[in-house]
């Protein structure tokens, strides 16, 4: 079976389509692999427990109802047995609603919730022939950078089980890196796809805001949230993006990508200009991460790419602006969890306000409460202009910095994360230190532009002794809005030259035949 699990999604789909391998055997091999999860990465699996079954989403309609008129008209995407992803099982972050399948968003307040409809992104995957392999663990409501904020326990990093996989899409990153799924869906609000991809040595793509529908994606910060793939390689990211992008009658902010997405084929970078923000010189960055970043810049030049210095003078204020805007939007979005229409209710015997208070006090974890309080404070009269208004202006400036940079260069490149994977519990006592993990990923989210993290090398954790095992370091490439095709082509060329998986050898967890063998 091991050779089936070695295939990328694109390779497996091609072999299934050509009749060289059986979709049933391929799916069964992945369900067996997923069943060995000892990373706490899955919250629900298609073959485990009483709620299981080979979940196909069969019979779903979105929204479900009587009659034949749907928002999709006659061409409603329905689960299919054929298509570009026929027979491919995919893990889905537990923030996407899946009809009849438990969906918690990592929160106690949604424990036991079974949504009546399926998210558009997931429907598009199943309509292309894919199947949901499982739902993955995550920071509660996607708030976190380590997956330690999940109500269902932290996820372990398959490279080193005493370290975090990053977050908030930590479960999705861990299943792909750990050989428990061929690919996964995540969401990225300030780095929640790219940072865990970086910390687990896989590819994570945050598309342009609006490329993929947000319908059925449980909302955190609606002006920033965007879903995207976590995969072993860039071609698989392109394949999944191509299936999921598009307009959606159920999300008026979904505009799709003109011309769709093709599998990348480029092998050199000649004629392309890469901008390195001069601010990186003074940024707080682990020496090992900086060394991998500089080596990767050299590889870009080897491939014919041109390196230029650019300035992002407002990016250093990205964290401040983000931690006003995202909590402000979250404080509004999370008001819907009131113990009335779905989810858990606590204290139904007293008056209504007491029921609200007890439901939220017990249902939400500490980080969610922290952000709701920050957000309501930032939006309160008297502080609105100083915090929320000012943060929105910083956002304009950051987007302007990128616009100016993209007049000189095709891409902006940075390390994805300032460090390699840190230890479980290492940063939980200091929320601000945790927030600073997002330093390099937040500016792209605020500007709404696409960015990809690809694994670029290994570095020992800071402070580790000689001979300490290396951990993955991600390299981030950002492009102008809707520049996904060009971004994927460049990332593909660089990925080929870096040869991360080959260079890391047997240290790559997914090569070790599933997590159970470690």
């Amino acid at each position, binding site marked *: 079976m091991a050779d089936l699990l070695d295939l990328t999604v694109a390779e497996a789909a091609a072999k299934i389509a050509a009749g060289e391998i059986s979709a049933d055997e391929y799916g069964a091999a992945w369900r067996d692999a997923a069943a060995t999860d000892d990373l706490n990465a899955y919250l629900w699996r298609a073959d485990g427990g009483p709620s299981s079954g080979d979940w196909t989403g069969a019979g779903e309609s979105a929204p479900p109802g009587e009659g034949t008129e749907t928002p999709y008209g006659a061409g409603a995407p329905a689960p299919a047995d054929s298509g570009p992803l026929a027979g491919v099982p995919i893990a889905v972050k537990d923030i996407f609603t899946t009809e009849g399948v438990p969906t918690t968003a990592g929160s106690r307040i949604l424990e036991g919730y079974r949504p009546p409809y399926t998210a558009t992104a997931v429907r598009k995957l199943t309509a292309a022939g894919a199947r949901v392999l499982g739902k993955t663990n995550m920071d509660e409501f996607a708030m976190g950078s380590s997956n330690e904020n999940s109500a269902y326990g932290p996820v372990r990093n398959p490279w080193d089980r005493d370290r975090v996989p990053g977050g908030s899409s930590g479960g999705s990153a861990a299943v792909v890196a750990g050989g428990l799924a061929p690919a996964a869906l995540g969401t990225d609000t300030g780095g929640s796809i790219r940072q865990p991809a970086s910390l687990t040595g896989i590819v994570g793509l945050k598309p342009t805001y*609006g490329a993929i529908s947000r319908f059925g994606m449980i909302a955190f910060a609606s002006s920033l949230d965007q879903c995207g793939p976590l995969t072993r390689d860039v071609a698989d990211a392109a394949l999944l993006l191509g299936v999921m992008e598009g307009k959606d009658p159920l999300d008026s902010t979904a505009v799709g990508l003109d011309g769709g997405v093709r599998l990348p084929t480029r092998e050199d970078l000649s004629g392309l200009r890469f901008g390195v923000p001069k601010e990186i010189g003074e940024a707080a960055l682990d020496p090992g991460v900086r060394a991998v970043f500089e080596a990767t810049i050299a590889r870009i030049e080897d491939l014919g790419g041109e390196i230029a210095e650019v300035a992002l003078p407002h990016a250093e204020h990205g964290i401040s602006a983000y931690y006003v805007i995202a909590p402000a939007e979250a404080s509004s979005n999370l008001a819907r969890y009131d113990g009335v*229409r779905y989810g858990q209710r606590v204290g139904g015997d007293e008056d209504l306000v007491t029921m609200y208070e007890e439901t939220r006090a017990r249902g939400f974890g500490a980080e969610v409460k922290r952000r709701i309080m920050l957000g309501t404070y930032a939006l309160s009269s008297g502080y609105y202009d100083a915090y929320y208004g000012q943060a929105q202006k910083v956002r304009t400036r950051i987007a302007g910095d990128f616009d100016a940079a993209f007049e000189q260069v095709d891409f902006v490149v940075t390390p994805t994360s300032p460090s390699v994977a840190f230890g479980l519990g290492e940063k939980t006592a200091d929320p601000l230190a945790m927030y600073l993990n997002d330093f390099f990923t937040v500016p792209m989210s605020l500007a709404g532009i696409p960015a990809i993290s690809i694994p670029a090398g290994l570095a020992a954790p800071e402070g580790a002794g000689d001979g300490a095992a290396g951990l993955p370091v991600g390299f981030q490439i950002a492009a102008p809005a809707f520049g996904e095709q060009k971004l994927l082509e460049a990332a593909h060329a660089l990925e080929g030259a870096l040869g991360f998986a080959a260079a890391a050898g047997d240290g790559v967890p997914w090569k070790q035949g599933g997590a159970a063998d470690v």
Partner: protein
Amino acid sequence: MAGELSGILGHVDRISDLDLEGVEPTSHVVALENVFRADVPWTSLPPEVALASAPEPFEGAFRVPSPQAPVD
């Protein structure tokens, strides 16, 4: 938690010193045109489906405690 929130606000406060007079605030990054659809009825959740996840459904409605605190 009060100390943590103060620490975060202290960091966030750094943007208050920036001179951003006259800068347009950004609430949404992608230029959007209004989207219209044909005014035709769509399917909607049947009441029993909409109520299926409620903690306390009651005769086709969501039941909640009284808004008024009990009087002793």
